[in-house]
């Protein structure tokens, strides 16, 4: 027993000694040098990344925050409530508590007492709940899987052709280096009611995709097509380089094993590409939760109906709208924080799912 205890003691003693030695020799003496070398990037990161990050979190909890003056009335959860339910223009520029309100269905207003005990009225404009969140989710769950599948198919096709492979690779990569707004303008021409798309499909010039008269669904279809097209090149690039690294022998083996083309694709190509698919999936999930430029590029405004509703809102578009006005900055910060939480949850889910399905 004593022997065992002694051994344990030796073991921990050894650990301790080793640590001591390291810090005494290399660690302590050179630490400041390491920090010095890292200083430029750390200072820049601190000013332009870490401070804004932390500040966003703080601002999200501030009441009546005004970014021009930097003043606020203490901490509150109102910003989050505003984002989630009562995100509209209030008559008194004040917020009221949700549970104190009465709803008037005719004027679509809420009347109630705010936190200071003053009566006020609020327009019930659930831009986030009604448009931004569903739109963002829809965009994500349509464009991410669609673009991954299409990118996979294109890269497999590209990989299998021998002639003109380089030229095709270049052609497919061009959208990646093209400005989103410029592409949006081209798409706007394509999807115009007098545009080429209506001409080809013979839809007449009263079929609207992205004009003011376009219904939400048409606008969404155009938007998704645009996003998928614009996100393909990067995915193709990643998949193609990964495909080139797969040992050709696996395909020979699959051939000998009588696997058909589709079965080979599902049983050899996809599992072999699974690390890249996971990487693409996570980055494009995050990317499409942050979709904004595509809406601006295609519609120029968050609506297809002339601004009476914000039916093309996305979460980030909402955040941008919020930070345009000094008095809604805190609401934007709260929305950003909520978006961050949503992305975290989805990324965590993907990692969980991928544990079984990704083969390194």
């Amino acid at each position: 027993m004593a022997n065992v205890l002694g051994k344990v003691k030796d073991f921990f003693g050894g650990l301790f000694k080793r640590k001591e030695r390291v810090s005494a020799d290399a660690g302590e003496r050179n630490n400041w040098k390491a920090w010095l070398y890292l200083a430029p990037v750390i200072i820049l990161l601190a000013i332009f990344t870490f401070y804004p990050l932390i500040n966003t979190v703080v601002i999200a909890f501030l009441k009546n925050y005004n970014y021009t003056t930097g003043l606020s009335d203490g901490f509150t959860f109102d910003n989050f409530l505003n984002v989630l339910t009562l995100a509209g223009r209030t008559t008194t520029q004040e917020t009221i508590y949700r549970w104190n309100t009465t709803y008037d269905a005719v004027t679509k207003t809420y009347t109630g007492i705010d936190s200071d005990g003053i009566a006020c009225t609020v327009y019930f404009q659930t831009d986030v709940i009604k448009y931004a969140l569903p739109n963002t989710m829809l965009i994500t769950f349509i464009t991410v899987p669609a673009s991954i599948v299409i990118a996979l198919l294109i890269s497999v096709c590209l990989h299998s052709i021998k002639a003109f492979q380089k030229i095709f690779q270049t052609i497919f990569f061009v959208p990646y280096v093209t400005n989103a707004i410029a592409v949006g303008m081209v798409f706007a021409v394509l999807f115009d009611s007098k545009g080429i798309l209506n001409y080809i499909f013979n839809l007449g010039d009263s079929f609207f995709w992205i004009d003011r008269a376009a219904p939400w669904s048409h606008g969404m279809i155009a938007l998704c097509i645009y996003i998928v097209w614009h996100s393909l090149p990067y995915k193709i690039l990643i998949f193609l380089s990964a495909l080139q690294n797969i040992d050709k022998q696996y395909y020979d083996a699959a051939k000998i094993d009588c696997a058909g083309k589709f079965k080979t694709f599902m049983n050899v190509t996809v599992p072999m590409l699974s690390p890249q698919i996971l990487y693409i999936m996570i980055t494009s999930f995050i990317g499409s939760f942050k979709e904004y430029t595509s809406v601006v590029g295609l519609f120029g405004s968050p609506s297809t109906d002339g601004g009476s509703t914000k039916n093309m809102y996305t979460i980030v578009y909402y955040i941008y709208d919020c930070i345009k006005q000094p008095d809604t900055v805190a609401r934007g910060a709260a929305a950003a924080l909520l978006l961050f939480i949503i992305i975290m949850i989805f990324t965590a889910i993907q990692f969980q799912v991928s544990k079984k399905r990704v083969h390194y």
Partner: protein
Amino acid sequence: MEIRLKNLTKCFPGNPKKGIPDTYAVNALDITVPDGKLVGLLGPSGCGKSTTLYMIAGLLEPSEGEIWFGDEDVTDLEPEKRGIGLVFQNYALYPHMTVYKNVAFPLTNLRIEEKMLDENGNQLLDEDGKPAVKRRKLTKDEIDKIVRETARVVQIEQFLERKPNQLSGGQQQRVAIARALVKKPKVLLLDEPLSNLDARLRLQTREEIRRIQQSTGITTVFVTHDQEEAMSISDEIVVMKLGVEQQRGVPQEVYNNPCNKFVANFLGTPPINLFKGKIKGNKVYVGDQVVRDITEKDVPDQDCTVGIRPEGIIVDPNGTFDFECGRILTMGRDIMLMSKHPEALSDTKFLIDAFVQVEVGNVKCTVKPHKCFAFSLEGDELRII
């Protein structure tokens, strides 16, 4: 299933503009692999043996010639339709599948033909009056049964739930063999299957291959550069050089009667000792020493290369052949004499029984006539005697 290769040629085109000539990886190969036999394709690297194997498998397209499986010309047939099993050099096991799934994978692709019967168990006929046949996939239970049976044959039952990277080289190799065997192929092809294994495992595994081949009776073609490996398990070996077949036959026969200098030099460890020599008056000379009388036939006088197998000497004070022994290596069962000879084309090595007393310095010996060959200096350096 007999495999016949007729005039099989694989040519990789060169670039005439840049002056790169066409490369013939395999040149006019004619081989017949008898049904149920194990044939080893043997040769140094780059001799076209793997190319030949891949052409038999259908993964490479022959430039010329035909491949026949029994009565069927399979030259233009897709690999999946040839009914072959192939074990790759580095096994090519699907790394993301368990051993079980790896072995079951070929079965999931298989369609079996089943006779259609009516309720009374009578054969149904199709429109042409032939027995009606239904093609169907194997059921899960059938696959499970076959996988476990095959796993038992190659002794991997305890690894079925593991991934290939959790197995040793030898175990992986058996999984690869199981995957090749599981669909009951007519032909089994093995591409340097032992090259990744250590010496002991190699010995064990080659016995295993022999055992599996004999128990299943599948016609097997086996590619290797290791002559010991090929000779020890093959029913027949084919020695190749630069895409051309040199000699074919039962291993011992090829070793005993090499048809040219290349085959004699390639087979045997340590390799055969080669000397500059000549034939004069039906006697073979190395320098001015007679190493062998020619009794079989009359051979005209000429210069030649003389080959003496390392085990081909008997130490004899009255011998007609002598050499300078520089060092004696004790090998246990034998001793090896590392020697020099003025006429030798390289350092010479001789093996003699360990109980024979020899000393460093000049050693006199007689040469066993059946271990001594003479090769022509011209053309393919064919054997004279």
